[in-house]
């Protein structure tokens, strides 16, 4: 126990390389928060059910609590901190959440934002049904889903108008 092996790793997060020294059992979610100080990624259930910790791994929504940091070496990771526009303004999904009141306490929001960012990149004009399906793997316990679903459709609209490369 006392001789737990430490791995020197390099993680590419939001386009920036970060060095960290972690034990193999360090979850990616914990590495992001504790080792890199990127506390935008939230940890809810820690067993893959709630979706709060969802980040993009090579563009694909992935549970960061179901992946070890050592396994993420060589991948490009995007967290909620990486979703703003280059000029620092809110990204399309963030802006849509603000406009549609898609968040209340905000705990689940980072997981929704990353999931929807990838979702509207794949399906730029989702129906309400498709919007619901897109966020079906993310739990929200206070805002409710009505405004989140509206925000999905609005985010897609903003992205289409802006011609954003998401």
């Amino acid at each position: 126990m006392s001789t737990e092996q430490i791995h020197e790793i390099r993680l590419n997060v939001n386009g920036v390389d970060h060095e960290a020294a972690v034990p193999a059992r360090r979850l990616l979610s914990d590495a992001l928060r504790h080792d890199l100080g990127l506390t935008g990624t939230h940890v809810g259930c820690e067993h893959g059910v709630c979706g709060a910790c969802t980040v993009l791994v090579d563009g694909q929504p992935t549970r960061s609590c179901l992946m070890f940091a050592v396994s993420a070496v060589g991948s490009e990771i995007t967290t909620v901190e990486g979703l703003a526009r280059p000029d620092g303004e809110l990204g399309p999904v963030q802006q849509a959440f603000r406009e549609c009141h898609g968040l209340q306490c905000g705990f689940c929001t980072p997981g929704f934002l990353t999931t929807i960012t990838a979702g509207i990149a794949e399906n730029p004009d989702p129906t309400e049904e498709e919007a619901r399906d897109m966020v079906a793997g993310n739990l929200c316990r206070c805002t409710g889903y009505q405004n989140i679903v509206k925000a999905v459709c609005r985010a897609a609209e903003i992205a289409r108008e802006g011609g954003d490369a998401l």
Partner: protein
Amino acid sequence: MKPAPFDYVRPGSLEEALQALAGHPEAKVLAGGQSLVPLLSMRLAAPAVLVDINGLPDLDHVRADADGVRIGALARHAQVLRHPGVAQVQPLVALALANVAHATIRNRGTTVGSLVHADAAAEMPMVLRLLDGSVDVVGPEGRRTIAAPDLYVGPLESSLHHDEIAVEAHFPALAAHTGVAFEEIARRHGDYAMCGVAAVVTVDGDRVVSAKAGYLSVSDIPAVVDLTDALDGKISDASLARAADAALAVLDPETDIHATADYRAHLARVLTARVVTAAYDNAREEKA
């Protein structure tokens, strides 16, 4: 909710991976990790060594041809689902995959990993058994093919040896005059189903020549029941009731926090009728 310490190796070749496994009887293979990591975090499992196979080359293939669907150990569920040939060659694989957890889990989880995790509440082990598929494994003695009936030996227990790695799964192609269907019922979208049923029905004209159904979450190991005799060639309320009786005679639903045993049995009965009928209709469309 943090895993116990373990040693970690990330081999670059299958040979290295096999050596790592051979050297540690307590080692476990990590592929997608979508079932394994929760088990580690809840400390239901505490292997001494994790052999991360995500760096192995040439294992992420998905092939669909007249022979069936072949899926490499590192192909993610999402990748299999996106492959246009899969739904053509064996539609049941695609139907079932769409019910595996959520899209986010499917992005990382591997189909072969799910098969050898051997969870009787999971979709793909049941579908492999129902379709008489197989899994190829590689170990110190070389490569061998394990037929689905021999793969599942107990709850969450496959017949793989500790020093073997599953490298490929094979789902046979849909036979002629045959239809398939799948349906499951869960408390919430993407949750483990309280009960799920898949059916494969072969027809000659309007007559049922053979019918089999697979069941998830109502037995210890993925269950398949031959319903041919119970149906006696036709689809009717009476024959479907006999088919459900035949299935329930084999199944062993249990009570947990999600559903009582009685409710699961009820679901198995309702879904048997619904899914067998859908597969029958599908078979007749295939013919037309």
